[in-house]
Structure formats: structure tokens, C-alpha cells
């Protein structure tokens, strides 16, 4: 990327896969320069960083984590996992329920943190494995397969918490959604960064990234080459489930409770949007984790911007839906073909005009 910028080769820059996502992010930030100038002010309040930008980066953490999983799933299976929000709720309720030892509210930990977190992540991984089994082994369309957990997930979460909101009012649990000691940076940011680095290392150091792409581009061809495409698809769903579980724990730590109805609500939409915004094709194949990450921050910036402009939480989906539609229309092959045809027509007309002179 740096190479291209040195040459100032505009065409190479505009054709880079991260060009559009970054432009989108800049556009959203630009709106803020005009609308809410104090958007970029970062100050220290009570020993922690404070400001709109910090808020954006902090709040986007869960979305970033989930979007990474969603990117892998999208790339490998050409479909999306719509159960991530529900899986987050399940993981959160398992974690809180173990910590509180079955009580509705607790001030001291009933079980060790490690046990609760590991259990929650295992449960989330199992949810992912269930989705993966349906998609990879039974060949069911991803969105339909994940529909089952999307519908049942919150019910299961409520079953775990017995229909109540479990509170864990313990400082050591609040750390994950708050601050570590006197560190001024919110902890969720570290979780997001860790997830990005970890997944990138796995993808770069092993051939998994390449395998996922090839399975997504042509499943049967990669099977003939000798890849176990079923296993790879299955694996992406498990990873997606585990990441959703981590996001669920962070989200529940933020509010130090497990609210089965609201944790991760509508997050699947945001995650899909992040993947699309990141320049990833929703029908699978080539993917870019960084694109999705930038997409996730863009969405959170958009959300925070809209809040700053006094749009209510209920009305937010309208704007997001419009953004999704614009992006998918731009991405659609038919639209691109038509644009190309239009460009060629114009070029031809220009030529004809020149010829006329």
C-alpha cells in the first residue's frame, strides 16, 4: 500500500481494496467536522480518556470482534451468520450465571472468573459448531441455518438466567467492559485489538486464510484440489461463534449484567454491514479482515454521529438500512456492468463528437 502511495499512482490507490472503506470512514468523520466540531476533542476526565472519538473506538469493540468472525463466515460459505447477536446473549448469560452462582444479583464471585469465561466461550463455540454442522455438513443455506439459533438463542439465554437479568456487581468483572487499574484506555479496545492481531496471525502464519478464500470462490474445485472444504466451512462458523462469545462477555461486563433480551441486539445487522462496507463481497471468496474492521469503526462512527445529531435509537435503523442498500447496490454485479456500459457509451459518444469536428 505504501509503495503505491509513494508513486502517487491514483489509479492504484483508488483500486486498492481498502480505498472505499477508508473513504466511507472519512466521509462520516467529515460530516462531524461540520456538524459537531467538538467530535475530535479528546480530554482526560477522572483519569480516563474522554471524548466522542474514544467513545466510538470503545463502543465499536464488540462490533469489531463479531465482524471479524462474520468476515470469515461470509468468505467461506457465501452467506452470513445472523445468530451472532443471540449467541452473544447466550454467552453473556452463561458467564454471569456461573459468576453469580445462580442468584439474581451478587456482590461477590461465586465461581472463578476463568471458569465462567471458558464455559461461556465453549458454549458460544458449540453454538457456532451447531451452525457450522448445518451449513457445512448438511448443505443448508447459511442464513436459514443460523435462523434457528437467531430465533431460539434469546430463549435459551433466558432459560439460563431463568428469565431474569443477572447482575454481577463485582469490580473484577467490570474490568472487561471498563478500565484496567489506572489505564486511561477502555479495556474493550484491547480486546478488539487482540482479536484483530490473533486472527491475522492465524491467517498469515497458516494457510487457513488462503483455504477459506478458495473454498469461498469455488467449493467443489477446492475439494478436488484436496482441501477439506466441509471442515474449513465448519471451522469458520466455530471461530465466528467463539468470537461472538468473547463479544458477549465484553458486552455483559459493560453493564455488569446479562440482559438476555438486549445484549447484542441487532448486532448481526451491523456486523453484516461492516463486512459489506469493508469491501468484502457478500457472496463469498476474497476477503479482507482489515476492511471489515474499518467498516465496523465506520458504522460505530455513524451511530455516534447520529446520536450526536439527536436521532433516537429507535429511528437509527432507517439510516443504517439506507446505507446498506446503497452499498449492496454499488457492489451488485449488474449495477457495475451497467455503469461500465454507460461509461463505454459515453466514451464512444465523445469519440464520435471528436470525429465530427
Amino acid at each position, binding site marked *: 500500500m505504501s509503495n503505491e502511495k509513494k508513486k502517487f499512482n491514483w489509479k492504484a490507490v483508488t483500486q486498492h481494496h481498502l480505498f472505499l472503506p477508508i473513504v466511507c470512514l472519512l466521509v462520516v468523520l467529515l460530516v462531524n467536522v461540520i456538524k459537531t466540531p467538538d467530535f475530535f476533542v479528546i480530554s482526560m476526565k477522572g483519569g480516563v480518556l474522554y471524548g466522542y472519538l474514544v467513545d466510538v473506538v470503545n463502543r465499536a469493540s464488540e462490533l469489531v470482534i463479531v465482524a471479524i468472525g462474520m468476515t470469515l463466515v461470509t468468505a467461506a460459505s457465501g*452467506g*452470513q451468520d*445472523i445468530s451472532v447477536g443471540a449467541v452473544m446473549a447466550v454467552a453473556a448469560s452463561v458467564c454471569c450465571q456461573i459468576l453469580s452462582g445462580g442468584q439474581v444479583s451478587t456482590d461477590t464471585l461465586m465461581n472463578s472468573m476463568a471458569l465462567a469465561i471458558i464455559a461461556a466461550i465453549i458454549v458460544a463455540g458449540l453454538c457456532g459448531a451447531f451452525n457450522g454442522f*448445518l451449513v457445512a455438513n*448438511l*448443505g*443448508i*443455506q447459511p*442464513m*436459514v*441455518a443460523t*435462523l*434457528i*439459533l*437467531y*430465533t*431460539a438463542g*434469546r*430463549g*435459551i439465554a*433466558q*432459560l439460563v438466567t431463568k*428469565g431474569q437479568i443477572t447482575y454481577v456487581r463485582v469490580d473484577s468483572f467490570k474490568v472487561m467492559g471498563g478500565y484496567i487499574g489506572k489505564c486511561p484506555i477502555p479495556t474493550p479496545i484491547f480486546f478488539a485489538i487482540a482479536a484483530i492481531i490473533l486472527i491475522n496471525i492465524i491467517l498469515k502464519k497458516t494457510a487457513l486464510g488462503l483455504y477459506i478464500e478458495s473454498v469461498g470462490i469455488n467449493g467443489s474445485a477446492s475439494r478436488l484440489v484436496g482441501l477439506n472444504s466441509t471442515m474449513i466451512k465448519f471451522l469458520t462458523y466455530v471461530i465466528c461463534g467463539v468470537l461472538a462469545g468473547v463479544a458477549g462477555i465484553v458486552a455483559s461486563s459493560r453493564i455488569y449484567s446479562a440482559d438476555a433480551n438486549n445484549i447484542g441486539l*441487532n448486532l448481526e*445487522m451491523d456486523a*453484516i454491514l461492516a463486512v*459489506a462496507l469493508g469491501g468484502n463481497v*457478500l*457472496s463469498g471468496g476474497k476477503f479482507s479482515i482489515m476492511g471489515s474492521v474499518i467498516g465496523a469503526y465506520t458504522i460505530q462512527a455513524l451511530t455516534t454521529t447520529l446520536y450526536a445529531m439527536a436521532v*433516537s435509537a*429507535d*429511528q*437509527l*435503523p*432507517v*439510516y*443504517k*438500512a*439506507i446505507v*446498506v*442498500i446503497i452499498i*449492496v*447496490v454499488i457492489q*451488485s*454485479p*449488474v*449495477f457495475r456492468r451497467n455503469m461500465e456500459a454507460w461509461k463505454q457509451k459515453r466514451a464512444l459518444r465523445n469519440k464520435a463528437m471528436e470525429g465530427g469536428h
Partner: protein
Amino acid sequence: MEKKKSKKKINSSTFLLMITIALFAVMYIAGMIIFNDKGFAKPQMFMNLFISNAGLIVIGCGMTLVMITGGIDISVGSVTALVCMSAAYAMENKGMSAVAAVVISLLIGTLFGIVQGYLVTYLEIQPFIVTLAGMFFGRGLTAVISTDMIAIQNKTFLKWANYRINLPFGTYNRRGIFIPAYIYPTVIIALAVVILITIMLKFTKFGRSLYAIGGNQQSAVMMGLNVKRTKMKAYVLDGFLAGLGGFLFCLNSCAGFVEQAKGLEMDAIASAVIGGTLLSGGVGTVIGTLFGVLINGTISSLITTQGTLSSWWVRITLSALLCFFIVLQAVIAAVKRKKKKK
């Protein structure tokens, strides 16, 4: 063992439909036996299944049409909320007549159908993504109209909503006075839609083309069918039915609020799938969907009658059933593929 004799005649779709009907019968009869003392066996209880699910039946019919073409529409729940809210807002805050509210409802539904249909068929975007956006758009727009609940007090509307049609059968109460079972006009509209769509699917060119497209789009094109226009029509019709279903839903609830009909799209999809509609397209009947809706209704009324189970069991049971049917479909498809190879 009649089944074995006519095994060749039973194809996978009728097999799925038979399972559904049998499941419904078993569930309902079991309910009648277990909860007889709580009045589950009364004819009115059966009619209530139709009354409370009239909107869902109509919406499910639309969903079935789209699913036969191989698509899906998850915006219907939001469209329902939007329709209810718009109708309530038009009548209560703008003083419009009930007839105008009907027109608005149908227009909203059709508009959703046209836009979504265009994006899906002519721009070839995945139906799930398009309707997911539609779902959020509809829900958000409902909140833009009003975040507070609007109860409908329009007289004509309430007259429609509470117009009882007595049936020639019923129960006798303790004093021996005959109490007829009743239904509302919504049930008649819903059943009429089921019958009309069934006829349309069976006997019209449009209906047959839907199956052809869902079965194999490539061969449908080669047969000379106008695939895009037919698909577009299916989405528009689905949108229209979502609008109509939404209005029926509104007649049942007599109010509009943001959280209304949340998850209705899942109920509609689940009903269609349980009713034997294949997710991959090409197979499905609205009669099956009707039974799917009835099973859905039976589960929730069984759980409410039982009393001690919590409401989330409805969702979990429904998803388990959905899972069962989806897996069953996958297995049937796999068996078919193997047969073809042989």
C-alpha cells in the same frame, strides 16, 4: 401400511405436507386430552387459533410465494408494525377514515414489495440482504412516525374488528344455554386468501411459472419464461399480502407500536418451512403453510394453557421444530441426489 403401496406416488413434497398435518393433529388431540379441564377441547379454542393468527396466515402465504421462487422475505414483521402504526396514525392523528387506512396499509405493503422485488430481481442482490435492510427500514420508520403506542378508537374500525360471525356449532354452558362459536371477518379474509393463492398456484400460468423458476431458473429461462418479471410479480404480491396481513394483524391488536410483531418474519418462515415449503425453492403449498401457522398457534396456546411454562419456551419449541424440518428437507434432498446419481 398403505404408505408402502403407494410409495411411488408420494413425492417428497406431499410427504412433508403429510407429516405436518399429522403433527398438527397429534399435537392438537394431545392438547385436547391433557388440557380438557381447561377448555382446550372447546370448538371456540380451535377457532381462536384462526382468529389470533389470521394476519400470520396471510403473511405466510406471501412468504410461501417468495420461497417457492427460491427467495425469502424477512421484512414482513417490520412491514406489519409499520402498517399498524401508519393505520393507527392516519385514523387517530390525521382523522382519516378506516377505508383510507386500508388503502394506506395495502400501499405500504405493495411499495415494499416493488422496491425489494426490483433490488432482488433486476439488480440480483441476495434476497436476504435486501429484505434484512427492509426489515430495519420498516422498523425504524415505525419509530419515526411515533415512538408511543397509538390505540385505535375509530368507530368504523372497531366495528370491523369486533364484528362477530356466529357459527352453527358451539358449546353449552353450565345452565345449558347454547353459546355458539364465533369468528371475526379477518378469518374469512385469511381463508379466502389461502384458497385464492392455492387456485392461482395450481391453475394459472403465473403460478406454474413460479414453481418452474424455483425448481431450476436456468431451464425456466430456456423454456422461454420471463423469469425476472415473474419473480418481480411474486415479490410485489408478497408485499401486498404483507400489507393485507399487517392490517388483519392490526384489526386483532387495535393498536400501533414500535415493538409490534417483532419476530413475526421468523414465525412466517417457520410456518412455511414446517408446512413443507423447500428453502431451496420449487416446492411448497399455501395449504401446508396454513397448517404450519396452526402448529405454531397450537404450540403457543398449549404453553399458555399449561400456565407454568414461560413464554420463551414457545420460541425454543418452534426453533426445535424448525430445525427438525430443515434437517429433514436436507436429508430428503440428499437422498434424491443419490437416486439421481444411480
